[in-house]
């Protein structure tokens, strides 16, 4: 919470393009605070995207993405929003990481500690329901890891990040129809995997 409050103090309106443009210009000129403010604005989203895409080492991978982003800033048009540019780098980097990985890591909740964390976050008090939710969450995490990357990435961008179709099409350099079809396909796979998990394990 403290970090978020600091973020809010640093810039008036984080979503405003003119504020972002100012941050970009300052970061490009070597202003560490400005670049720090950009990272604070997007770190949760980027880490969330990497975690859903890859599962493990999300923090390290996100750090590499921000470094790549900074190195590419000189060719970024500061009058445009940061998010599509940043997510293009994030997508390409995650795809590279997945190509290098021989074994795909599944973002399972690894131990009781993490399960506990999930339970704390959940507002419902019923422990049975919570345990069931944790199991379902595991099933979705597992299902997500088995969805091919070409469906997984646009699915996360659309449903989690709320990036519009036009922007996803630009990020992935694909026609909008293909993006829609891929999101649809990814959603279908996710739904079917969850259904088969529940049916196999008994509802």
């Amino acid at each position, binding site marked *: 919470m403290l970090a978020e409050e600091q973020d809010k103090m640093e810039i008036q309106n984080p979503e405003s393009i003119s504020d972002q443009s100012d941050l970009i210009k300052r970061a490009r000129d070597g202003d560490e605070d400005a670049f720090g403010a950009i990272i604070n604005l997007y770190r*949760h989203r980027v*880490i969330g995207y990497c975690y*859903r895409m890859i599962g493990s080492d999300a923090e390290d991978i996100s750090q590499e993405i921000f470094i790549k982003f900074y190195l590419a800033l000189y060719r970024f048009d500061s009058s445009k929003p940061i998010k599509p540019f940043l997510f293009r780098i994030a997508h390409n980097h995650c795809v590279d990481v997945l190509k290098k990985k021989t074994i795909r890591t599944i973002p399972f909740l690894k131990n009781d500690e993490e399960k506990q964390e999930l339970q704390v976050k959940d507002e419902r008090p019923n422990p049975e329901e919570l345990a069931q939710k944790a199991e379902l969450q595991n099933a979705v995490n597992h299902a997500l890891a088995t969805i091919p990357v070409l469906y997984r990435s646009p699915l996360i961008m659309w449903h989690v990040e709320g990036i519009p179709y036009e922007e996803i099409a630009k990020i992935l350099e694909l026609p909008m129809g293909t993006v829609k079809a891929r999101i649809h396909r990814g959603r279908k796979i996710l739904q079917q995997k969850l259904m088969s998990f529940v049916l196999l394990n008994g509802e």
Partner: protein
Amino acid sequence: MTKCEYIQKIMQKLTDGTIADAERTDLEQHVTLCRTCATEFKFLQLSLDLLISMPVPEPCPEFTSETVKRAFVAKKDQVRRRKVMSLYLSSLTAIISALIIASWSMIFQPVTRGILLSILRTLSGWTALYNGLNKAISVLVSALAHLGDTAVKVVWEVSSPALFGYLIALIIMAIFITIAGVKSSALSLKRR
């Protein structure tokens, strides 16, 4: 299209956010009657809810400061590598240009040939190199002369503007490289 197929399409429209009010009513009514579609709908919503609410690890408190530090080091490294690369390319271009100009003037200008070869001999102190080059150029010049005056004239007429164009291109390129170098240096040095 069966009713269930129609409802399937509507479900996708709902998740796309493009559903019309009438379609929403159709969907709501249908899922109360059809168990298969109700299950499908339930799992579609559940899977997306779980995807969105997936617990994501919190970044460590030093995440931002550490990333900024690493990014600035990487930037310095990038600028340094670019400088080395531009220096390497400039040197290579200068050497190639010098070789082209020297060869050209050695072939067509006997006076320049004499001067350049003498400089080479003085600098290297290697008479064998001087003799070898002198002989090779003489053979080349006599071969050209053998082809007749017209051939020499044609080679001269073609090579002179080509060399002139090359020199102009080289000067323009040098100006661009200098501007780019100055800009990137200013970028890396401009710190608060």
